[in-house]
């Protein structure tokens, strides 16, 4: 939602190149993930792979880190959304009850197992696909294609830096590390995963270019939620100020994201430490709700999401290739025997 502002920090209006670049890197990562998960027999999730690669103790340490990373991710998603609600809808509301109700909803979704988690994600996908179409057509009269020019006026390093910022938007592919055992036909699903990644990249690219043509660069730097401001310009016969509805509609997307992260974390706890998923689910949700209650100011939230995005980038760009290398080396070593 806010990535348009974040990516232009370095690369300015050339950031669309960064988006494409990140998309390509993500394809590479997906390919690596599939290679990692399919090459060691009888261990097709990250927990057992970590055990095999790094031994029981170190492996479990890494697993715990991964689990906490997922919980942290869910928390950041939750809190960032809450911030938006606070600014746009209810500036002076007590947020504890809402957080509790949302936590209950997440509990309900995650306790339904993989099926209801993927179910809510399907709805979220449908919603985001459907909501993009009117966005394009309704902003059309306000677009200034000239904004995109000149095509290349930033250095390669700026573009790379921006693509690092962009990675934050793609965080979530790593849930594949836990989802993989539930995929029925891995070979076929890899094709789908690449296809969806392509679609997502195109979507991001489209929204970004729309925003670039809609705002001038300086204006975009002053806008915290560009997408919302864009939607705000629309007027349909029965409703105006559609951004108020859009924020609420986003709720479904947010819930889907949180549910998947929490589900992955619970799954990780179960496989690594044989904890009952229900128990870890309750603990995680309580922790998130409590944290949300105590972190209130915008600056802390910014900082926390900054930290998360940095960890995420290292997770994607360092940990996964490292595991990939380890798996490949192991494969080479074991083969002769």
């Amino acid at each position, binding site marked *: 939602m806010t990535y348009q502002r974040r990516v232009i920090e370095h690369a300015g209006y050339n950031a669309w190149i960064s988006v494409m670049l990140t998309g390509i890197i993500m394809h590479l990562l997906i390919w690596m993930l599939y290679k990692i998960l399919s090459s060691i027999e009888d261990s097709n999730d990250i927990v057992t792979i970590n055990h095999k690669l790094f031994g029981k103790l170190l492996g479990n340490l890494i697993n715990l880190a991964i689990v906490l990373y997922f919980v942290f991710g869910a928390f950041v998603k939750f809190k960032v959304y809450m911030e938006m609600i606070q*600014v*746009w*809808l*209810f*500036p*002076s*509301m*007590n947020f*504890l*009850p*809402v957080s*509790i*109700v949302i936590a*209950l909803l997440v509990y309900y979704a995650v306790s339904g197992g993989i099926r209801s988690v993927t179910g809510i994600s399907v709805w979220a996908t449908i919603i985001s696909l459907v909501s993009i179409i009117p966005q394009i057509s309704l902003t059309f*009269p*306000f677009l*200034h294609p*000239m*904004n*995109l*020019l*000149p095509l*290349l*006026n930033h250095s390669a390093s700026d573009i790379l830096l921006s693509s690092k910022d962009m990675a934050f938007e793609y965080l979530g592919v790593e849930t594949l590390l836990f989802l993989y055992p539930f995929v029925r036909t891995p070979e076929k699903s890899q094709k789908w995963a690449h296809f969806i990644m392509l679609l997502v990249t195109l979507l991001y690219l489209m929204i970004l270019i729309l925003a670039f043509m809609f*705002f*001038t*660069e*300086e*204006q975009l730097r*002053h806008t915290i939620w560009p997408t919302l*401001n864009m939607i*705000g*310009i629309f*007027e349909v016969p029965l409703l*105006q*100020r559609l951004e108020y509805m859009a924020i609420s509609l986003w709720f479904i997307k947010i819930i889907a994201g949180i549910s998947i992260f929490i589900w992955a974390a619970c799954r990780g706890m179960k496989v690594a430490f044989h904890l009952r998923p229900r128990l870890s689910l309750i603990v995680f949700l309580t922790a998130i709700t409590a944290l949300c209650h105590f972190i209130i100011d915008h600056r802390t939230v910014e900082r926390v999401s900054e930290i998360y995005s940095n960890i995420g980038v290292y997770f994607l760009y360092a940990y996964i290739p490292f595991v990939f290398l380890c798996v490949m080396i192991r494969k080479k070593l074991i083969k002769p025997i």
Partner: protein
Amino acid sequence: MELRSRTFLIIVLSMLLTACGDTNIVNSIKFVQTIGYDAAQNGVTSSAVIANYEEQGKSKLEFYVTESKSVYDSMPKLNMKLDFPIEYGQLRMALFGDSFARNGITTAIESLIRDPKISSRVHLGVADRAALELLNIGENRRDPYFLSDMIEQNMKYGNLPMMNLHLTFFNYYGTGRDFFLPHFTVERDEIKLDGIALFKGDKFKTKIGIRDSFLLKMLLEDSKNGSIMVPMTSADQTRAEYFLMNSIHSKPNYKVIRTGYPASVAIHVKLNAQVKDVPQWIDLTSEDQIALLEKSIEVYCESEIQKFISLCKRNNVDPLGLGDLFRSKSKEWNSQEFEEHYNALATTVHVNARIIRTGAGG
């Protein structure tokens, strides 16, 4: 377990009862629908127009005026005068008084854009006197949206280019662009839209008439509607005669010829027009006469556009976004440098007019 989850549920439910969001029930708030800002002795005079819906079809306008140190504390001050909380969510129009606009309106528009409640479709405008005075005349119209509707309809069917808070902001922050706002005056105790106020930075610089605003519209967007009177002289008549040209569709095209200084740009406008009200001696069925009309439209528009651009250059304002145009074409563009050489900018204008309709009846 069963008992525990039940008590938990009860706790949650009882919490819900105390957890309502901030309610703004629609009939117990006051909507500011039009607001005016004027420069005062030491600060700002804000005037708010609020409709009071007493009876269907006969809304009464309420008018509240308050003085404050700056734009920012006008709302809390206004609240002191009202029985219901004041809300800006339905604001449609912000009007700036002449002296206020000349002093710079940054604080006002920034405070508008920062408030998420305020729509980016809000219209801004400049009055040729105090905003308060102009709104007072508007008050007896009984329509809180009178001014914004006026702007809206003139954008759609008249000579005004597209404008609103978002676009103003776009031009304000855009490099190599200057924004412009509709300009109001009073004629026979009625509010009249009499042109466009051109701004430099956030300061009101100069005003152009309604004819020039048509040119601006034509140069900025793929426009529809709008009309001007075009003069023509004929061999047998010594004095100039006028005919009315309605634009049906126009499309500007800019071609940068030289990016180095002095820069030069070629402007090419395609114009499809309707002509029906012409001097008597012209026969609209004759091919030659139509060509003559087309020619005179082209010549007139070209010279008027040149005049308009030189006016802009003289006042150092850039409502056309020519700076932005050069920025997009060259990597070494620099706004300061461009501004210094703005006066020397060379423009060639070419208008290609086609009369595609001449009304019903010859």
